[in-house]
């Protein structure tokens, strides 16, 4: 009797607990929804209040927005706010402020190339950032170097009939981008390089020798080694002379050493590597172009940048 009463109480308790839990969840969900909605409203209000006559407002708000960005869309908007701020600060002859915004933007930038450009511009705008520039730039390059080395290994594996390894490495995050960037630097079409890689991987996938140069041939008591007849091309080369040169150029850029080492490079190699593109200084216009910003449209209105409030 007592047991049944207890079990009844327990059932009631479970029921009450379940109901309470449900109510709590619903309330919390509503609360979250309210907060998100409120936050969104606050963001829009603050965005529309940004004043081009006060570029520091773009800095403060852009930095906050970037720090609390929860998705790619918010992050992109935060970057745009900062980019507009950089343009306005530079226009208003406020180089220190523009440099600060460049640094904030660089910290939030995923692409190492873009981050390096921003740091370089920051130093050009404000010479006092020298030590910070050196430290952070080297950090970015060190992080980038690992990706570039993996990309180089990928090309190496593809050339030397190691399709599994090449395929795996090509899937590593940032490798494709690193190959594309290196291709652009050496004036080679990135799509061409990636296509060549894929063809090499595909070609090697059917290789029964697993990349061995010589195979053993046995017959009449004599064991001889011979060049594997199944290989369509010598191992380590490519499908054509041109594609081979392209791959070597890209690998060379990927493995580019320090400045001291670069100085020792023969000038004749530059012609072969097609590295004669003009040197480009980091500039505000370059940053604006990168983020698709038109500085004559500094107002946020109806979800886009506009020329008037």
């Amino acid at each position, binding site marked *: 009797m007592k047991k049944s009463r207890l079990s009844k109480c327990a059932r009631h308790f479970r029921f009450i607990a379940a109901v309470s839990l449900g109510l709590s969840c619903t309330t919390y969900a509503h609360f979250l929804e309210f907060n998100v909605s409120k936050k969104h409203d606050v963001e829009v209000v603050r965005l529309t209040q940004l004043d*081009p*006559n006060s570029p520091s407002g773009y800095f403060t708000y852009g930095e906050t927005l970037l720090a609390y960005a929860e998705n790619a869309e918010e992050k992109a908007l935060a970057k745009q706010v900062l980019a507009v701020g950089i343009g306005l600060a530079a*226009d*208003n002859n406020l180089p220190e402020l523009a440099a600060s915004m460049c640094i904030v933007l660089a910290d939030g930038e995923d692409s190492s190339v873009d981050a*390096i450009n921003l740091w*370089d511009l920051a*130093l*050009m705008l404000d*010479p006092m950032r*020298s030590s910070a*520039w*050196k430290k952070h730039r080297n950090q970015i390059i060190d992080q980038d170097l690992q990706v570039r*080395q993996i990309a*180089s290994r990928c090309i190496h594996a593809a050339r*030397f009939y*190691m399709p599994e390894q090449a395929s795996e490495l090509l899937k590593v995050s940032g490798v494709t981008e690193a190959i594309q960037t290196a291709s652009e630097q050496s004036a080679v079409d990135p799509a061409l390089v990636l296509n060549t890689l894929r063809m090499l991987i595909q070609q090697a996938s059917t290789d029964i020798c697993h990349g061995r*140069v*010589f195979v053993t041939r046995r017959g009449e008591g004599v064991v*001889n*080694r*011979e*060049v594997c007849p199944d290989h369509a*091309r*010598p*191992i*380590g*080369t*490519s499908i054509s*002379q041109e594609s*081979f*040169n392209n791959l070597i150029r890209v*690998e*060379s*850029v990927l*493995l580019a*050493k320090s*400045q001291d080492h*670069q*100085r*020792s*490079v*023969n*000038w*004749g*190699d*530059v012609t*072969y*590597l097609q*590295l*004669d*593109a*003009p*040197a*480009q*200084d980091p500039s505000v216009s370059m940053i604006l172009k990168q983020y698709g910003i038109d500085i*004559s449209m*500094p107002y946020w209105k109806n979800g886009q940048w506009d*020329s*008037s*409030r």
Partner: protein
Amino acid sequence: MILQRGQQSPIVQFLGDDAGAGGPFALLGLKHEIDSDDQIYLACTRRLAQVDRNRHRSTPDADEVRLAIHTAASQLLDQAMREELQHRWPPGTPASLPKAWKSEGKGNRLSAGIVQSAKMIVAASGGWNSTARKRLVYFAQVKRIHAFDLIASLRPQQLKNQSSHLRSKTAQPETTSCNVPLVESPPSGSLVWMGMYMILFVLGASVGITIFFTSQQISSNSANQDNVEPSFVDSSNSNNEFIEHGVEKDRTEFEHYTAIAHELDQLVVQLQSDYQSSVDRFRTLYPLFVQSWTAFPTPALDRSGFHIVEFVRRGLLAKPDDTSLTDILVSNLQSSPNESPDQLMIQSAIISVLHSDAEIGFDHLSILAAEHVSRVGFKPAPSKTISQAIIPVVGLIGVAARTDDSVWWTSWIQGLDSAVSEDKNQRDRFVLSVLTSRVQDQTPAGEDWEISARLLVNKLAWREGSSERFWLFRQFADQRASTNRLAPITEAIAVHSSAPQVSAQMVLNSTATTKQREQVASLYREAWESGPAQSGNRVLSNKLANDMHVQVSLTPTWSDQDRMIKNIILLAQLNAAAWTTQQKNSEFSVDDFAIPVLITDSFTPNQQLMLGSNARDDQWAFDAINAQDIQSLSRLFAQLVEDGGPGVNSAYALVYLATLNSNSEMRSAAASQIIRYRDHPSVLIALDHAIAGKRVTSRLGQLVSSVIPYPLPDRTSEHYFIHTHAYLIELLVASLARDVDSPLPALELELIASYVIRLDISAKSDTNEMNAVDIVKAVYLQQMMRLNPFISEHSINQRVQVVMNRVAVLLARSVNPLQNFLAYQRGICELLVIEIGAKHPTDTRQLQDSLEELAVRLSQSKNVLDQIAQAERCMSQLWIIQLEAEAP
């Protein structure tokens, strides 16, 4: 006063009773016995001093007494006159009036002619002053008349009467005054007076009628014109009260710029009290200012510009939502005639100055900027003053112009003259930029261009050493310059300008071929390069500066590789020569650098790497890898020599033999072949394959180390593969690059030769093993050391820091040795600017211009070689500035 003192003569009043009787002797206080003229002078001075001490010294009476003293002195200085006077006033005679005071005597009678002459004397002396008085005394003496009568005849009637009365009282004159009246009084009551009054009445009536009818007409015009040109009464300032009708014709006072300037001054004040009428007034005044700004001197222009900007600024701040002021600026910009670029210039400058004001709302500025872009073609650049803002505007409008209209260019020149009247160099630069722009226009030129070309050409002096001469050389060499358009310029120079050393034969035909163009260019070069003879170091630096000018002019922004390399070498050599000249180093001369010699290796490409499957290669690999003894291997190695090196599979076989063969003799033989062909791509590929294995044996490690000339990580290290692979790729690139014909190694050698010269002797000893980048770095560091004397100045120290940072960024961004070289070149340029600027502060503008031009040219370059040429060109420009600044 005179009448009150009337009982006494002025002489007695000022000099005492004794002076009043006894003629000139008494007047001067002298006895009859006069030993020398000095006594007379002394007495004269003493009496004058006595007059000066009197409290009535500033009265006309005092002047008369002074005159009498002078007269007396001059009479006594004349020996004959003195004797006569001694007879007339013997010592002890009762007092009598001096002769000069008598109204008549033996002297001549005053005639109208004498009075007229006296008036002329007074006029010629600048009025009634001491000079006039002295002259009149002498004049009276010459004419033998009484000076006082003469003076009295010149005085106004009332004073004359008083004077006569005074004299009659004092001297008891015998007769009436003989004064000659200036205007004879008409007889009273005569008909003449009536006639004169009638004439005056008629004149007055006609003036009254005219005023009445004119005001009626003005009222009716005002009513008809309604609000287009509204009646405006400036109530706040009575000086400005007028009724506005027909801006240009009725406001004749605006014919002078000061009238507009004055009203603009007033407008800013009026804005506070009466916004609307001030804005209305501004609507009228602003177009007038725009039309006539070229008449304003620079300070007045700045002042009026400042007032306009201040007026607009205050207006926009007072009523941010009111767009009437913006509308006035915009509508005026829109309505400016196309053929009047000078009007666009001033409006653009005003908008630019407005853009520098942080308080003006972005909305207003963006409207102005948008209109500015659509009308002028570029965005306004914020500036502080009108005179600063208008300078770039003039240049940009001129360069962007695509017209040959001579009216347009006349207006542009007018604007140019007003905007840059104080800076001739700037004016010349703009004219040359405009000529460049027009000459490169490929549309056919008409008669209008001939006139415009003359206008522009005549704005330049074409003197020896002037930039316009080098500009012309460059145009002849530049293929972008249209012959059709260049021809009228040569005609303008040769026929219509004051350019020296030119003749009518130096006119280019508009259909001339390239060869004919070169011939005309050489004519100009011959005529202009033969200057007057000079001596010593001056000749050297002059010739060098001229050569540099020519080379700077001839270096294009971009060109084909061979031409650019030639330009780089020439400029580098000239810069080296400039350095040695500046160092007063007699070891080198300009001629040592005059002929550029490009070291060109005869190109012999390596045997192409056989990448495809090759039966001979496969067979060689099979034979080698299965060889049983060293002899058979030796035969195979001999075959490699014949083939020019191993194929890819042969190289694999060699690596296999060198690392895995059980016979040590065969291993070492194979290793020696690998070392022999270590630069061959096949060997490098084979080694790259070998190190990718799971385990690198000690034999393989040694083999690789013997091929790669750099220290490698331990073969067991996890970094071994990637580092070794990177080196092998680098060697592979170097090997493959040998198959590519490149002029860059030769260029590097030339640059090394030119830059080594610029190093100090102490630094030169260590340059044998250095490449071009090492040497340019040494020159850069040396240039930095040269700034040590100036580094104590905070601003220079800061600028050096900026340069160092910039170079650090450029080096960090560079991806090849050429970009490294360029980074140091740019650093040298910036350090040179600091050094020359510190030595010659007056050239700072020119130095900055050179750097700005470098930045523009770098951004337009198509490859890194173009950029190296631009940096070397900039260095030449800086050396030219230095050489010319230091020329005696």
